[in-house]
């Protein structure tokens, strides 16, 4: 290869995604997905969550294999630290969702990525979860995401890429917008 322009390849099949968007617009019911996770208490603050089946496109699906997540609290909370804390899993979800978006949007905009690293920081005052101060919320007071991206693009194109990935991110939406949550006992 000398001067030949190499096609941009971030490993995302955007043609298939755009095709799906086209197809689902005319069959809106098929666009309804349900995602499911099963969580089992093991002991102490340790639990294991498994995801496997989900529904959408009018049928049931399975991941290629079940995936599981170990969650626990660290030793400074008098736990055994057998897994990530649930808020850390949320930060992981946010970062990976935005990163997938960056790759997809870059592919669509024909921007070749070389490396993408996201660092996510969530600030939390634990007096909230400890019930020690009613004015402090349990959750994060602020979340900061920093992207370090090496790509064939101007700084402004990269900014636009990151902004667009937020526009299209499920987890970013879940984190930034209120969601009704119903918790029942079966």
């Amino acid at each position, binding site marked *: 290869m000398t001067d030949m322009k190499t096609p941009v390849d971030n490993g995302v099949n955007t043609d298939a995604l755009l095709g799906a968007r086209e197809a689902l617009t005319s069959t809106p019911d098929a666009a309804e997905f349900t995602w499911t996770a099963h969580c089992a208490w093991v002991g102490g603050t340790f639990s294991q969550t498994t995801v496997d089946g989900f529904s959408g496109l009018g049928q049931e699906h399975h991941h290629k294999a079940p995936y599981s997540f170990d969650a626990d609290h660290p030793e400074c909370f008098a736990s055994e630290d057998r897994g990530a804390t649930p808020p850390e899993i949320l930060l992981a979800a946010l970062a990976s969702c935005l990163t997938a978006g960056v790759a997809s949007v870059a592919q669509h905009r024909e921007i070749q990525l070389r490396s993408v690293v996201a660092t996510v920081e969530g600030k939390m005052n634990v007096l909230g979860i400890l019930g020690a101060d009613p004015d402090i919320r349990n959750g994060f007071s602020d979340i900061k995401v920093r992207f370090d991206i090496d790509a064939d693009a101007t700084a402004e194109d990269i900014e636009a890429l990151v902004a667009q990935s*937020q526009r299209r991110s499920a987890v970013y*939406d879940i984190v930034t917008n209120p969601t009704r949550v119903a918790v029942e006992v079966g």
Partner: protein
Amino acid sequence: MTTSATHVPTVIVGAGHAGLAMSRRLTERAIEHIVLERGEVANSWRTERWESLRLLTPNWQCQLPGMRYSGHDPDGFMTMADVADFITTYAATISAPVSTGTTVTRIARHGRGYLVETNREHWTCSSVVIASGGSNIANVPDAATEVPTAIAQVTPLTYRSPSDLDDRAVLVVGASATGVQLADEINRSGRSVTIAVGEHVRMPRNYRGRDVFWWMHQTGVLDEGLDDVDDIVRARHLPSPQLIGTHEHRSIDLNTLTERGVEMVGRLGLISEGVAKFSGSLANVCKLADLKMNRLLDRFDDWSDAATIADLDPPTRFDATRVPSTARLDIDLVEDDIGTIVWATGFRPDYSWLDVPVLDHRGRIRHDGGVTDAPGLYVIGLNVLRRRRSSYINGAERDSEELSALVARHLDATNRVGDASLDTTGTSQHAGIT
């Protein structure tokens, strides 16, 4: 069908700028037609707009087939009364066959054509052009049902002026042209205003000494067609640009609002137990709008570099939107003494009378450049119908030219196969047209 119907080749629904432009084109082509109008000519402009509103587009751009602005202020912006006069004069100038006070109650397939039922007489026709506008109903989110009863709720279709409101604080939901204009006007009336900001389109009124519509006209932005627009669904549903038509040609955006003391919060999510919850995405929607504005200005600059326009001011960039890092995520509406919520959350058309299966699951007409998949049924006067310019009054000029050619072709084809199945129940002479 109980009463008899009169046959006419084409029925146009709505005597606004788009319906009248189509009427003019059909007259040019000697196609007999009638324009059915529920109220008076230019009804929505007369009755469904707030008092201070002026067009976003400058006067020189107000042109329709066979008429252009001839006043003394080509760079000014028409009031709603001016627009109503302009369109009424137009209807008279082109001798449009308008039947006013005629509300269409149902349109259905009838043989090879359509049956148009109204509160007065009924019509059969071979083709229908829907020009009833895209802003018949104000969108109000589900959260409206959770608003505490002591708080008044208004939409841009019912709001007239700040004097309609009590003296308490006001929450304006939405940051389109409508949202920012109403936030500005209500703030200037002395009331405390909070604006909830989702995705929006930021634009300066003037750039390098020229109106932004001059730029969009000159650079071809307004003439971008369906093939040029990357995402047509998005383009058709973009909020209107943050612009206002004033004598001073001033810009309006979130910075000008916050400088005056308007509080900015994110997109309204939901209201629960009297507390409104807002999105944490405010910084990103502002970033998106700033980036998009700068891409538009880049495009203007690139064009003017090549076109060597002599008397332009030098290129400049505007301050980024200043997003408060402490923007509130929830507001207790009662504790904050909110007296009114203004739902500036967009509009949608009303097709409750359209009994032809051309609507999508959201109730919008499926069309390709104004051509529906029901033979002989067309629509005109919607956002980005055939090009970006379609969203503005003078978009009707070319849209009507092109669509009227399709209407003519359809009528020719229909005539060739014969009108036998149209069943005009006797009275097929010319319609009594006022």
